[in-house]
């Protein structure tokens, strides 16, 4: 029992990331009808927003500290982050420590801006082109974005730690009445899951309970009619693209303490997220979220030692295997709607 709970917990953080990316992909597909292969790159850029902010915060200038002497008795040169000058040392340290959560505030405008530029500058021209062209051009864009990041940040992963308060793990098993030390779970992963749940809830609430969301949903169902009613649906869809980009970016920001960001992390996640979207059902938002968590948990179950003994290597291929089976037995995916992307 405790092993099962542990695996479910382990699957949650990866599942959250899949769900968030898949949600964005589905939003873009559902509104604009575009298959966005560059969505993984947006996830990656989000992660590098966190890196950038923590670099900005630690920008330093050198001062000569008269109180500290080296062994020759000369005053030491000390690097002091500018942020100390503004907020004082204690607050400054706290801000640097909380760089990753703070990056959320930094990443939202950046990601929405990037989303706008991408949509207006490139994707707009591909509404009417075949899906293959959309895949190809966004694939090219993904390569370009990834290489730009590689040029500025190098090819190596950049460790970006979580705030001190969330470092370490807690004993989840003891809380539930199991033996202590059976279910140990890092705090940050729980934070990530809670964060993902909030974001997903927010997106759904936005679509469900605001007038803007209502119009967007109407546009997803029948774009032409909404247009005929005198609503500028293109503008709203562009905003939705920005939001989808922000969702992917935030997923990336918060993922940095779990996995040090490198320039190809987006591509790694993208392939899996596409599988998730297809399993969930193209164009279905709840399907994308459900499939994301489901596949994440399934993947962590498949990597249990007991399972690996019976089926070696299953953890590597389980997601693809499930995708193949689902596509062949339920062609529309788990929650796909009729008439969406059926050739």
């Amino acid at each position, binding site marked *: 029992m405790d092993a099962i709970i542990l695996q479910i917990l382990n699957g949650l953080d990866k599942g959250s990331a899949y769900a968030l990316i898949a949600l964005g992909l589905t939003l873009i597909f559902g509104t604009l009808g575009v*298959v966005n292969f560059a969505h993984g790159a947006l996830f990656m850029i989000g992660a590098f927003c966190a890196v950038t902010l923590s670099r900005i915060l630690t920008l330093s200038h050198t001062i000569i500290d008269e109180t500290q002497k080296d062994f020759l008795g000369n005053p030491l040169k000390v690097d002091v982050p500018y942020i100390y000058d503004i907020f004082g040392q204690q607050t400054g340290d706290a801000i640097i420590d909380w760089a990753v959560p703070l990056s959320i505030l930094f990443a939202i405008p950046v990601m929405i801006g990037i989303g706008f530029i991408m949509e207006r500058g*490139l994707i707009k*021209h591909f509404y009417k082109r*075949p*899906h*293959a*062209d959309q*895949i*190809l*051009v966004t*694939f*090219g*864009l*993904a*390569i*370009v974005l990834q*290489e*730009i990041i590689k*040029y500025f940040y190098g090819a190596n992963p950049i460790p970006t730690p979580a705030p001190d308060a969330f470092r370490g793990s807690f004993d989840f098993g003891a809380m539930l009445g199991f033996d202590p030390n059976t279910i140990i779970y890092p705090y940050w992963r729980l934070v990530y899951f809670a964060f993902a749940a909030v974001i997903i809830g927010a997106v759904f609430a936005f679509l469900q309970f605001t007038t803007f969301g209502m119009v967007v949903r109407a546009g997803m169902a029948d774009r032409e009619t909404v247009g005929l009613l005198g609503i500028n649906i293109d503008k709203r869809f562009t905003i939705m693209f920005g939001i989808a980009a922000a969702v992917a970016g935030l997923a990336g920001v918060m993922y940095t303490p779990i996995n040090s960001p490198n320039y190809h992390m987006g*591509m790694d996640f993208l*392939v899996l997220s*596409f*599988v998730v979207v*297809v399993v969930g059902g*193209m164009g279905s938002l709840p399907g994308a979220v459900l499939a994301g968590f489901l596949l994440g948990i399934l993947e962590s179950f498949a990597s249990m030692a007991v399972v690996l003994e019976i089926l*070696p*290597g299953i953890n*590597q*291929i389980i997601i*693809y*295997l499930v*995708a*193949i089976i689902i*596509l*062949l037995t339920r*062609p529309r995916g788990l929650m796909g709607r009729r008439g969406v*992307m059926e*050739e």
Partner: protein
Amino acid sequence: MFGLTKRDSTLLIIVILLTVLAPFILNPFPEGSAMAQFNAGYPDLMQRLVIFGIFAIGFNILFGLTGYLSFGHAAFLGVGSYAAIWMMKLLTMNVVPAIIISVVVAGLFSLLVGWISLRRSGIYFSILTLAFAQMSYSLAYSVLTPITGGETGLQPKVDDPRILDGALAAGQTPRANFFGLEMGTSYELELGNWIFTFNAGYYIAAIVMILAFYLSIRIFRSPFGMMLRAVKSNQQRVNYTGLNAKPYTLAAFVISGMYAGLAGGLLVAMDTQVGAERMFWTASGEVVLMTILGGAGTLIGPVLGAGFIKYMENIVSKINKSVLEQWFAFMPDGIEDFLIAIVYPFIGKGWHLTLGILFMLVVIFLPGGLVEGGQRIGRLFKRKKPSDDAADGKTTPAE
């Protein structure tokens, strides 16, 4: 010629001339000159040019004719490579059985993958092929290590059985050969300052590529090819006509899988080693790039695309800062530094950035690839003759 129309024969002859004369064409700079490092006429690169040409020709039979975009073709190349290397380990170092078995095994594997994947079309098909390729890649890395060698890959070893070859003499290493002619054999021709290398392996690969190209022309011009085009332009109408499209698309899929296997076998024949990274999905992406860049659905496009990408990869990644400084040395210092700073991200290790931008530009502005570009330029010069039928040279853009 060989049952081809005049235009196709010309195309075939152009390809034959290009491949046969490649050692001259790719070595335009005299030895020892500053530009000599940009010569591409060395065996390893020339072999890659034609082998990836075969890969792209095969991919084009699927994508160019039927419009099914496979994102997992590298799996067939990888499977073919593994089959070939096992032939070399077990049977003989002669490349002929290795290449034959690689085609057969890749064909069988693509039959399985195609049979399942072709139940769906559009993006679902792309995802299914991608899923299969990623599965093969992961398995080759982990569970199938006894067969694939895992991370280290496979090479022929001295103590492999090799039933047909007999024992090697002491100190000899196994080398791939074609009935005794070793793949690495080269003849160097010196003409003044130029050195041209004629490599046995290259010419074997080149002959195979010419045959593959000829076969693809025949497929394009056959009733079967027409059928595939019909599937691309409107599959629903094909179904309503009472024709079942599946056997045709499956045949196209298997043929292109066999081409990929052939390319994989040849890669092993030229350089006797295999690693699983050959099956990674970026490798599948690369062949898509080649085909689109050259011009999907055209005959010569994929060959040009493969050649262009592999050649540019070689050239661009060799340019470094000091070369740039030489080039811009004639300019005033400030402008020189500025230009170098601008160009620098795109060269050397930045090759992929250049490739990505180029690819995007092609997809956006030139969906027919380099071939369409050439045709547009050609039409620009022809415009003076009003009687010229513009529609004649037009190809349908890739979908």
